[in-house]
């Protein structure tokens, strides 16, 4: 499931964004060895202060497992201000209809444990890309320039999502190299990505479902405090879910109700004291 955050809704999702900063630390500092600034376990830089859009992927258990950051190329962005080395000293692109994608990553450790299917590396990579391209298309964007590493580049080529070109040349960056890939933000590319990953549903998930999944992951509480009939009902709903989407929705419902009851319990004990 995917949530898109920007300056208008991020106040409601600071905890999810916080998890994303931690994921970025694990990927860009720990795994790729990029020279990034990490504060209290969170990787964020000056460009995060420019109100970017984040495309954030969560797995079915409500953990942040993938992300991407989007900025306009008409204003300050990484290729113009930080990664100009990649462009061999050439000025960057600037266009109303080109966005820059940076800090694109997935949680390979967690996803490798999950193995194949809905929580695999290639599924989440495709999910993030589909969301970014569809979101871009709705905003009138025609192309994206993405700063990526060769591993991500290979994953994309193998997922029906090969860049149509590159700007400048790949440059060493920490343990790996970084490159600037060009991708058309087109219906055809989205179709190829969807065919490859067999993702047919709307990847942008309603905010309340994402929030419920995220919050239930933070509170892996049992549902013991619920009245027995209600608990049985919720467990049956989860067991009877026909598809992964239904299961997510059933778990989200259980989490919401469990949280509601926990709050009421808290209030009751308060009124006793």
């Amino acid at each position, binding site marked *: 499931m995917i949530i898109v955050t920007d300056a208008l809704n991020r106040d409601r999702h600071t905890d999810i964004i916080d998890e994303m900063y931690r994921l970025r630390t694990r990927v860009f500092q720990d795994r790729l060895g990029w020279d990034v600034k990490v504060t209290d376990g969170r990787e964020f830089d000056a460009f995060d202060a420019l109100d970017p859009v984040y495309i954030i992927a969560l797995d079915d258990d409500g953990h942040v497992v993938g992300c991407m950051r989007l900025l306009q190329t008409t204003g300050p962005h990484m290729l113009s201000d930080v990664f100009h080395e990649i462009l061999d000293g*050439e000025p960057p692109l600037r*266009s109303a209809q080109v966005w820059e994608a940076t800090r694109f990553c997935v949680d390979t450790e967690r996803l490798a444990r999950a193995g194949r299917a809905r929580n695999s590396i290639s599924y989440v990579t495709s999910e993030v890309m589909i969301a970014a391209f569809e979101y871009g298309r709705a*905003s*009138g964007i025609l192309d994206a320039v993405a700063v990526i590493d060769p591993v991500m580049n290979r994953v994309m080529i193998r997922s029906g999502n090969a860049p149509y070109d590159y700007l400048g040349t790949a440059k060493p960056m920490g343990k790996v190299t970084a490159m600037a890939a060009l991708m058309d933000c087109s219906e055809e590319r989205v179709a190829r990505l969807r065919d490859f990953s067999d993702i047919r549903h709307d990847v942008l998930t309603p905010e309340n479902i994402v929030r419920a999944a995220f919050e239930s992951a933070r509170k892996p509480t049992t549902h013991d405090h619920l009245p027995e009939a209600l608990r049985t009902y919720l467990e049956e709903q989860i067991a009877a879910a026909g598809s992964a989407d239904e299961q997510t929705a059933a778990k989200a419902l259980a989490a919401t109700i469990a949280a509601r009851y926990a709050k009421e319990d808290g209030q009751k004990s308060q009124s006793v004291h």
Partner: protein
Amino acid sequence: MMDLIDLSKIPDADDRFVRFLDDLCQTLEFDHASYATLNPVLGTVQGFANYRPDWIEHYTRKGLHRIDPTLHYGRKSISPVDWDRLERTPHFRSVFDDAPQFGVSDRGMTVPVRGPYGDFGLLSVTRDCKQQEWESLKKKVMGNLQVAAVHMHDNVMQSDLAMATLHRPALSGRECEILQWVAEGKSQQDIGDILSISHRTVEVHLRSGRSKLGALTTAQAVGRAVSLGLVKPG
């Protein structure tokens, strides 16, 4: 306190920006359009609009630019903001409740533009129509609206003397090379073949070149590049 300056009311101001907004409404099928930018040096909001004069008067007199969420939230977005996302912000109703009596629809959208020097601009458009019509209109014109917003913003910035001195279009070698071939009459396909790159790559550099030169068409971009000595006349 920020002042609101109607740029079209400045004596001797040329009217090309208001005409641009009129043309935009005509071609993209909107009722009204406005453009605003914050001048970081003067601390003023400067703008143009083709709303009815009595709405502009009302808006200015009440100082609505100080609370208008289309300005204050719009500027923080990177993508166009449909005003339905702003309806629940504290001041949306106080700004727009009176709008219909001035012939201004509260169905609208704001396209934010970020410039290279931390400058920003906001192009807003409105249209009084049904939801379905609005959605299909958005889909149809979103790309053009993005281009128009950046074009308007860049031209307003460049019309300002202080900004003009800062503005030097930084074309990449590829962009110059492609514009040079265009000047010599080659098609995009030809240029792709000559440079052994895809026509899509030719196109992305052309779009970027046009944007940096503040041009809407490739012919205009070639003209400006020639006049700046970046490209030799074909």
